[in-house]
């Protein structure tokens, strides 16, 4: 096997702090390499450094990146351009902002195709673009070339990003968290696609993910990173079965497994009377002429001290439901009763939301203390001193140092921000906490911290929690009951263990089957030659 990519001693500095410290690896044609590691350990930075596309302020201070004999770290910009996209391609971590909002998806694919002076005619490029979209499972591909990115769901956008990177059959494909926004079924499709490409065109793959299941399924070899260094490397199966470094062991231990039974019952016992009763909830977005119905008559009960897990396809209406419950959006139909009384138009003090994206929900101009104190001020709870005491207490409850109250959101890590969001939601002493994907962006170790925190709060305060997530293993672990959403409807509700082990609805079964497992990977590498078209079961718009 020939080596296509040879990275040695790669070091990246951000104005004094070293983000990547002496990373090195080799990649042969047709090989697959996974990179895992703590959030902030330098995974994305490494990937960006490979193409020399570091954000302003970042600099490669040492090392080399040899692609087929050329050192990318030292190549002139023009020569580098000729390689990017054609020989080494990249899928970025954040699909939402990585697509140009004012160009149609067709135009962007076209740009990618013509970037390297390909001799294709206009019509040929069009055909190829359609093919690429089709490949990543966007239904109705030819039609949708005319749409703009905002007209696609988050998961679809992530797949468009992948289609762009596939435009030129590059020798190396670097995929940074390619499936974070995807539910298990679609995630499965994408992973199969990557595997297939790897196998058919001999493209070497570098996959970055915090989801060990994903890595297991796609990558033969593995790097584990921490604090900018590679702490462990080797064949995936070996590392997973016999981790050497303590951090790797920690990581593995924290991975929730789908086959572990729910721990919720041990944690708390739900009350008899439902706290929150939702009946026939409907929500339609858009104008009369062009509307999207996100919720079709959803019924839901939430009891005190209970955690209800909510899973479902991306775009099935989970966030819409969450927002309706906290009255951030008026529903188009149905009723929401809290303790038997209809909720008013304004947000209710006792129903609070923890946002999907912690960072954007924190006001960048305020300190953590101010942010947590806001609901207290709004509801006129306590005077200045009492509020300060309460903020300190809350911070301690979520496991943060009260001294951190003076810091701005920017100065916290992802997991810490998530906890600030939780502290804020807890401040007005709610009895219902709605958590919208509180862990999707976190690596397993931080994820475990957050889950532990929620469990403790439920135990101590008897909170009712609606827990929305993609990751079924986590959901099973924390929930008393699980509800499954599909196309704006709840298709199945039941005790957590029962839903996972004996799904009643076919969609639930499909979802479960798609979850990548560490064990299965160890047993038999994901081959399942699915050359069948990667058709999607869902249709968007």
């Amino acid at each position, binding site marked *: 096997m020939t080596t296509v990519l040879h990275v040695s001693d790669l070091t990246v500095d951000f104005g004094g702090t070293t983000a990547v410290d002496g990373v090195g690896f080799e990649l042969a044609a047709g090989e697959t390499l996974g990179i895992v590691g703590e959030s902030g350990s330098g995974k994305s930075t490494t990937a960006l450094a490979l*193409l020399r*596309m570091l954000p*302003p302020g970042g600099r490669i201070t040492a090392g080399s990146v040899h692609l087929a004999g050329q050192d990318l770290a030292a190549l002139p*910009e023009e020569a580098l*351009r*000729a*390689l*990017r*996209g*054609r020989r080494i*391609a*990249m899928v*970025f971590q*954040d699909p939402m*902002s*990585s*697509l*140009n*909002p*004012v*160009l*149609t998806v067709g135009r*962007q694919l076209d*740009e*990618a195709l013509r*970037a*390297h002076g390909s001799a294709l005619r206009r019509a040929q490029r069009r055909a190829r673009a359609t093919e690429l979209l089709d490949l990543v499972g966007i239904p109705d591909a030819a039609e949708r070339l005319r749409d*703009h990115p*905002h*007209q696609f769901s988050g998961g679809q956008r992530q797949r468009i*990003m992948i289609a*762009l*990177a596939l*435009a030129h059959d590059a020798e190396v494909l670097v995929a940074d968290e390619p499936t974070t926004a995807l539910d298990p079924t679609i995630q499965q499709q994408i992973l199969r696609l990557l595997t297939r490409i790897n196998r058919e065109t001999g493209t070497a793959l570098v996959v970055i993910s915090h989801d060990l299941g994903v890595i297991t399924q796609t990558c033969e070899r593995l790097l584990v990173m921490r604090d900018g260094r590679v702490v462990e490397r080797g064949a995936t199966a070996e590392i997973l079965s016999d981790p050497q470094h303590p951090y790797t062991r920690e990581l593995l231990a924290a991975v929730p497994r789908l086959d572990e039974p729910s721990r919720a019952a041990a944690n708390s016992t739900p009350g008899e009377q439902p706290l929150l009763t939702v009946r026939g909830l409907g929500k339609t977005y858009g104008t009369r002429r062009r509307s999207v119905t996100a919720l079709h008559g959803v019924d839901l009960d939430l009891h005190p001290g209970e955690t209800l897990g909510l899973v479902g396809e991306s775009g099935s209406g989970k966030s819409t439901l969450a927002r309706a419950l906290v009255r951030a959006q008026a529903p188009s139909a149905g009723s929401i009763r809290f303790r038997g009384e209809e909720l008013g138009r304004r947000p209710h003090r006792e129903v609070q939301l923890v946002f999907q994206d912690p960072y954007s929900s924190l006001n960048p101009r305020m300190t953590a203390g101010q942010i947590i104190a806001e609901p207290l001020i709004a509801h006129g709870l306590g005077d200045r001193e009492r509020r300060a005491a309460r903020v300190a207490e809350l911070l301690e409850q979520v496991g943060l140092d009260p001294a951190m109250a003076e810091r701005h959101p920017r100065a916290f890590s992802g997991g810490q921000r998530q906890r600030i969001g939780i502290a804020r939601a807890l401040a007005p002493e709610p009895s219902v906490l709605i958590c919208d994907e509180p862990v999707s962006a976190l690596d397993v170790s931080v994820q475990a911290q957050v889950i532990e925190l929620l469990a403790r709060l439920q135990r101590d305060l008897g909170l009712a929690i609606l827990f929305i997530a993609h990751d079924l293993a986590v959901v099973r672990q924390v929930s008393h009951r699980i509800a499954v959403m599909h196309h704006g409807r709840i298709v199945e509700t039941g005790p957590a263990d029962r839903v996972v082990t004996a799904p009643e609805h076919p969609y639930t079964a499909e979802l479960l089957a798609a979850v990548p497992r560490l064990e299965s990977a160890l047993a038999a590498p994901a081959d399942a030659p699915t050359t069948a078209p990667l058709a999607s079961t869902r249709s968007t718009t």
Partner: protein
Amino acid sequence: MRTFLLKRLPSALLVLLLASFAVFLILRLIPGDPATSLAGPDATPETVEAIRSQLGLDQPLFSQYVSWLGRLLSGDIGPSYAIGGQVADLIGDGFGATAQLTLGALLLVVLIALPLAVLGATTRSRPVAAVVQAVTTGVLAIPPFVTGVVLVLVFAVSLGLLPAGGHESLLTEPDLAVQYLAMPAVCLALPSAAVVARYLKDGIERALAEDYVRTATALGVSRRRTVWRHALPNALPSAITVLGLQVGHLIAGAVLVERIFAWPGLGQLIEQGVIRRDYPVVQDLLLLVVAVYVAVQLLTDLAYTWLDPRIRWE
């Protein structure tokens, strides 16, 4: 598009009505009156009174306003007081000339601002950046009345390349018209071009820092194409808004520039109208300017939604 217009038209009409009221009042607030202008420098107060009543200026203000609106709606706006001729003819002639001037200037604004902005946003060479900077600010610092006079001195008086002033219609004598148009249009366009260039440059710089530009780079799209095809379209919507605002400034600037280049447009007419307190001319003209401006705002909003697909969605 239809719904957009249907939604916007009522408020646009309301703006026009308010504007008519404002125009009417403002004119009456300015001291001096048409009768004294008409009566000449050595008139007696009696003569002035006679002319006032002949023009109906002794009527109560409100009835003057109503009869003006009535005339406007009936389409017969009548003769001017002091300038001579029918107001409609005066405005019609001036409108053509001013449209020629402002549209020419607008075109220049785009032609100057676009390359300047792109150059300023993308250059890595400090001297080039400094030159772009100097041009965009120098032009804003030197008032058009100086620019205009200097242009005339250089290109007409010294070099004899262009006529010092005057106007030909683009429709009948296009080759001559362009030569007459050159200096006034440049003079009018420069400050606006500087402002638009500044906003555009800012927009391009911001777009260049976005993730989607990073995507284009990662795909190997060339630097030039990245700037023109990926960053620029994102900077355009807000630049279009600024351009729309500049139309107002161009119309206002026409008053100065038309004067310097003896350009027979609405700016001259407004100035003459104001100086002679020719109420009908000024009133109708200002209302027309407001209407044009409101229409331009409608157009920029339309362009905005066209350029930025996200807005259509909402």
